[in-house]
């Protein structure tokens, strides 16, 4: 199936539509909540929580014996939450830094989960296979009711986000200050963390334990490059996430045997790379261009300052001088003189130059901090 064919089928084919909607919603909620994780410098929290969810899935299966997705995800939710609050407890009550706590919980829970998975595989029970789909995810197993469930959770999350927007923002920026204003920071913190856990658990079926954190971080990291406003960042991240979901599903559906989760993550990674390079304010490309531009301006200004020193010795500021007298100064070329003329700083007349009123004024106040800050 061609990619084009996929996009024509997506509106008519029931399965395809379900999966696409599911990955889009997942991308959106992950992008939104991922922004918070990134800004709290808890980028690895998602990774730890998703790995921590694995033993929950295995235990849920061992207890109930069913492979009902919702029950397994409930197990994932419980063990994910336990992992998350253990991390919180470790960082609060010991001298360990959060990266250590995250790494510890991640490997501990994941190791235990893998142990249980291999144990389950050795059981004489025909029903056991398929649990490993949670390792890398299998979007094809998404059912309409899964998608409905995701949509409802995302909706609730959105409402909470809008309601407590002010409090979230305050806590993200300055937690101590939030406390002094009388807000219950513990409540806000638990709310954010719980929603991050929820988003991760929702994504396990589609993207899997191992890659889930990329769904949280990539859209947020990309979005941060484009804006200096928190609300725009969250909206953009949701949009990037949803878009990665749709495009990733499209690519994986049009190429046989490409598993959806990794493709979505790769598409999101392309967004990140693109944003790092091409964002106008923070991107590498424009930063380099600005750097070169500033260097050029600096050279031009040096020449102008030299001319200013000559011109100011005359009564008549626009008295013409020979270009030759610039020769003992190395900052100028014919081209730079022409550039100065085009900016209306000087006038050229044959072998002579003279300063304009505008140029004289500009040169007099060049890099004068006091004036520049007032003009800002």
């Amino acid at each position, binding site marked *: 199936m061609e990619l084009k064919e996929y996009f024509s089928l997506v509106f008519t084919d029931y399965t395809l539509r379900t999966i696409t909607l599911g990955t889009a919603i997942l991308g959106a909620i992950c992008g939104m909540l991922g922004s918070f994780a990134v*800004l709290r410098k808890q980028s690895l929290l998602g990774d730890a929580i998703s790995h921590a969810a694995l033993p929950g899935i295995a235990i849920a299966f061992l207890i109930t014996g069913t492979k009902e997705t919702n029950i397994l995800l409930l197990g994932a939710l419980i063990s994910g939450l336990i992992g998350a609050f253990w991390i919180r407890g470790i960082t609060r009550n010991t001298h360990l830094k959060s990266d250590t706590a995250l790494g510890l919980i991640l490997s501990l829970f994941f190791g235990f989960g893998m142990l249980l998975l291999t144990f389950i595989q050795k059981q004489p029970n025909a029903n056991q296979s398929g649990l490993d789909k949670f390792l890398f995810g299998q979007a094809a197993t998404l059912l309409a009711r899964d998608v409905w469930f995701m949509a409802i959770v995302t909706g609730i999350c959105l409402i909470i986000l809008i*309601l*407590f927007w002010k409090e979230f*923002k*305050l806590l993200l920026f*300055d937690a101590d*200050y939030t406390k002094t204003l009388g807000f219950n920071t513990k409540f806000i913190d638990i709310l954010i963390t719980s929603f991050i856990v929820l988003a991760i658990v929702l994504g396990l079926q589609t993207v899997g334990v191992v890659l889930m954190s990329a769904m949280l971080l990539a859209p947020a990291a990309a979005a941060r490059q484009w804006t200096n*406003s928190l609300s725009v960042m969250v909206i953009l991240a949701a949009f990037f996430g949803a878009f990665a979901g749709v495009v990733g599903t499209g690519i994986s559906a049009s190429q046989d045997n490409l598993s959806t989760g990794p493709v979505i993550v790769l598409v999101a990674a392309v967004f990140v790379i693109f944003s790092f390079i091409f964002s106008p304010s923070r991107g590498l490309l424009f930063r380099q261009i600005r750097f070169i531009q500033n260097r050029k301006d600096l050279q031009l200004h040096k020449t102008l300052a030299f001319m200013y020193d000559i011109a100011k010795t005359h009564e008549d500021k626009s008295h013409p001088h020979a270009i030759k007298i610039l020769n003992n100064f190395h900052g100028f070329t014919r081209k730079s003189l022409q550039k100065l003329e085009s900016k209306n700083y000087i006038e050229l007349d044959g072998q002579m130059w003279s300063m304009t009123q505008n140029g004289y004024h500009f040169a007099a106040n060049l890099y004068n901090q006091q004036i520049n800050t007032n003009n800002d």
Partner: protein
Amino acid sequence: MENKNLAVSVDDLTVAYNYKPVLWDIDLAIPEGVLMAIVGPNGAGKSTLIKSILGIINPIAGSISIYGKPYDEQRKLVAYVPQKGSVDWDFPTTALDVVKMGTYGSLGWIKRPKQKEKKAALEALEKVGMLAFKDRQISQLSGGQQQRIFLARALVQNASIYFMDEPFQGVDATTEIAIINILKELRKSGKTVIVVHHDLQTVPEYFDWVTFLNVKKIATGPVKDIFNDDNLTKTYGINYKVSVQQ
């Protein structure tokens, strides 16, 4: 402090992070309307003292009251300027937005800042001379400007008592003068201002009240009465007079 109201009163405050106390049995009475410096060496517990008063840190023992009532009931009378380095200045927000955060406390849960809050924030920005920078992303402000933004955020709270954690740290002379003028203005209008301060030279010039702290409270009172070599020596553990002369 004879017939003045007590703005802040701290009783038997003890704080410890581990087994060793950071603050030991502090009794402190801060009268209304003073501009007070808290001085002491590194690790003396200066920041910890104000963080404990503000309820950011839970003390092991002791009680705090603001105008005679527990802190929890009096929160709206208190504003806080944290150390500049305590937040991530690359956070995606503008100067005006940060100042608006000062209104969040009086707004309470869920309610959003409206025109009235915006107006108050703009006024505070003007007071600290930062109005022209209101739409700047905060990472593009200089250290002194960031400090002024923090001050403006506290001014918006329109509190009676201001706690400031090293507001002069890493700022240039212009900003330092601008800030101290605002603090003096606050005192003039009857507010109480408590500042963690490091520069001993400027204490007599800036402040009228001082507390010497080094885990224990060494002394507290009017600068003209107690800011002397004896207390400095007791606090810093060196012979202050001799050290300065050398």
